[in-house]
């Protein structure tokens, strides 16, 4: 009698195991599209008969979340590279659009301005030609002003992204610290679910900044940022700070202790926008300023060497600018000259019909005066090339990083991903196991009924 009851118990245990297997299969299928979910695998363990003679059964050994720490780490690294290149490409994509198209941007304004001096040289006393010089000079200054403002705007956008990125980093770090606390007190399925969430948060964080993750003994994670600055240690978060720095007002990123770690942020989307904000845009702006400064300087020098229609020495055509920095934003036609067409100094001798100074200014467009090596248009084309080249490099880098991320993701999924075909197979396997065990249960039960009937007789 005791043997048949044991058999019933064994069958019940086997039914439980098959049902659990079905549950886990269901969980896997349900989460096949859940970000960060690692496939669960049921471990079944054999339970031998206590007396060593009657039949044994099966028990649930546990459920394992299938993860590869190395691949998860590699994925975070590549996500950082992808985030950096992607944010650079996005930011520069806006910048290069702001440069304007060929023939309708600064190149066109430069050509129109200097060519207006050519027109004036053909008719040096013409009021129309003089007005045209002033109008084109004003247009050129406006183009410089607008481009400078667009670069400033791009810098401010990048700064806003830095601030937003740091806010996200802090939010994620807080989330990870909370999860660490929860993981420490959790076991089994709950701990695994928390680790899935933490992995997702770590991946998002890696896309934002260069972090290093150290797995804790309890399955949680400690995180450092930049050059090993603590961000999360156990349940403690060390939030990053933001402080506006003069004169730009751009944000510097600081640790909880107040150390400026802006220069340490080299990867992730925050690292990317920092590179755009602090390195690339200032470089572009500096080149634009240099062109504007040289235009103002050279035109003023030539204009002041000439004579206006009244025979007086020419005044500065553009309002004098002291230094190259900020020249593109500051350049404007001297209001005194702008208010009187007679003050345009076309003459090189003081006589009204002389056009030698207008010719000098017309020819200035072909002089290699920007840094002593390039004409104005050449210098502008070099800047356009630099922006285009940097953007193309970032776009290529993003594509490459995306390919690497996809490859690593596929490797990671080969271990952690859910295969619907595999789950279908498992489902069938557990279903069949359940059916067989149920049949076995019925058989034992029927045997017991027979035995009971015999006892009743």
């Amino acid at each position, binding site marked *: 009698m005791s043997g048949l009851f044991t058999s019933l118990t064994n069958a019940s245990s086997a039914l439980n195991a098959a049902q659990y297997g079905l549950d886990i299969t269901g969980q896997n299928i349900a989460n096949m599209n859940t970000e960060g979910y690692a496939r669960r695998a049921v471990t079944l363990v054999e339970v031998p008969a206590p007396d060593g003679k009657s039949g044994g059964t099966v028990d649930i050994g546990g459920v394992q979340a299938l993860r590869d720490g190395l691949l998860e780490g590699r994925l975070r690294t590549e996500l950082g590279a992808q985030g950096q290149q992607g944010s650079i490409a996005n930011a520069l994509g806006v910048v290069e659009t702001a440069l304007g198209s060929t023939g309708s941007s600064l190149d066109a304004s430069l050509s129109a301005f200097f060519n207006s001096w050519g027109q004036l040289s053909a008719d040096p006393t013409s009021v129309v030609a003089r007005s045209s010089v002033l109008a084109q000079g004003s247009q050129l200054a406006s183009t410089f002003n607008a481009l400078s403002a667009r670069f400033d705007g791009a810098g401010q956008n990048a700064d806003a992204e830095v601030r937003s990125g740091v806010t996200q980093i802090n939010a994620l770090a807080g989330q990870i610290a909370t999860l660490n606390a929860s993981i420490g007190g959790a076991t089994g399925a709950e701990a695994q679910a928390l680790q899935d969430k933490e992995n997702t948060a770590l991946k998002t964080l890696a896309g934002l900044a260069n972090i290093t993750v150290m797995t804790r003994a309890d399955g949680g994670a400690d995180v450092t940022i930049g050059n090993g600055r603590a961000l999360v240690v156990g349940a403690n978060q060390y939030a990053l700070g933001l402080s506006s720095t003069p004169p730009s007002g751009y944000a510097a990123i600081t640790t909880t202790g107040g150390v400026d770690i802006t220069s340490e942020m080299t990867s992730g989307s925050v690292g990317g926008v920092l590179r755009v904000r602090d390195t690339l845009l200032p470089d572009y702006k500096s080149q634009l300023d240099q062109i504007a400064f040289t235009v103002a300087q050279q035109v003023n020098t030539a204009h002041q060497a000439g004579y206006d229609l009244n025979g007086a020495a020419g005044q500065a055509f553009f309002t004098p600018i002291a230094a190259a920095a900020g020249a593109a934003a500051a350049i404007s036609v001297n209001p005194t000259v702008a208010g009187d067409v007679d003050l345009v100094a076309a003459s090189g001798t003081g006589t009204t*019909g002389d056009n030698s100074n207008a010719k000098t200014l017309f020819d200035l467009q072909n002089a290699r005066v920007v840094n002593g090596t390039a004409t104005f248009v050449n210098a502008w084309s070099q800047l356009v090339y630099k922006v285009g080249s940097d953007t193309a490099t970032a776009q290529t880098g993003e594509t490459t990083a995306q390919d690497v991320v996809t490859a690593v993701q596929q490797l990671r999924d080969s271990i952690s991903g859910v*295969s619907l075909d595999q789950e279908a197979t498992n489902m069938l396997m557990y279903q069949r196991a359940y059916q067989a065990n149920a049949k076995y249960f019925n058989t034992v039960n029927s045997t017991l009924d027979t035995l009971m009937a015999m006892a009743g007789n």
Partner: protein
Amino acid sequence: MRVTFNTVRDGLGNIQSAQEQYAETQWQVSSGLRVRVPSDDPLSAQRAIQDQAQVSGIDAYSQIGDSASARLSSLDSTLGDIVTRLTQALTAAHSAQGTAVSQTTRDAAASTLLAARDAIAGDINTTFNGAYLFSGSNASVEPYSNGSGSWVYQGDANPVTVSVDPNRTVTIGVDGQSVLKGSDATDVLTTLDNLATAAQAGDEAGVAAGVDALNRAFSRATTAQTRVGLDENTLADGTDHLSTLRMAATTQLSNDQDANLADAITKMNQAQIAYQSALGAVSTASKTSLLDYLR
């Protein structure tokens, strides 16, 4: 390797990539341009700016040439008229030479000479768009005036030139004194005044001296007109040269920024097929599962 199919990540990524290529080639075909933003081809974008500046520079020279051409035409016709007037004056002066010439003839010759003087004075003070053509660079001042009873040149000796291409210049403002006076002691207007007086008075020596001076003035005027003619030829040559340069620059600009339409259309068709294939592949793959076979 164990393969798991992630429809969202793998499939959508491929669809987007194919769609992006399709959109790009479609833009090239519809716009006719190959470079939309500098990052499409930084080097071509850089060259296109320089090509465009080259075209603008050539157009500027062309516009200067157009303006210079009108001035040169005016100079040419004015100098032609001066030559005509000098010829008439010479004829009149010759008619007054000789002892047998009647006073009536002498008076008529004197009248013709004074009329020629007035005509030449008018010619030499010709303006173009309000600027005097024969004042040298002093274009706002009348070249010759006779306010105090004698003819005075008020311009300067600096001719005004303009560049009609990078290596060619033409003169658009002439030193009037070099035409009417040259190295003579008096200008031709004064000469005509004196000649009229001499012709009327029967001053044979005075008429002879005046005829000599008129011949020299005639020579100077025809030389000046020849120079203007040469400048007009220079301008015509320059215009042809600029046309050639412009064509070369626009061809280069087109090479740098325009799409090869045949190539772009081919690529667009390829991209369209790739896009359709990606859509088909994802929809097919997402339909296939072991679950379909488990009944």
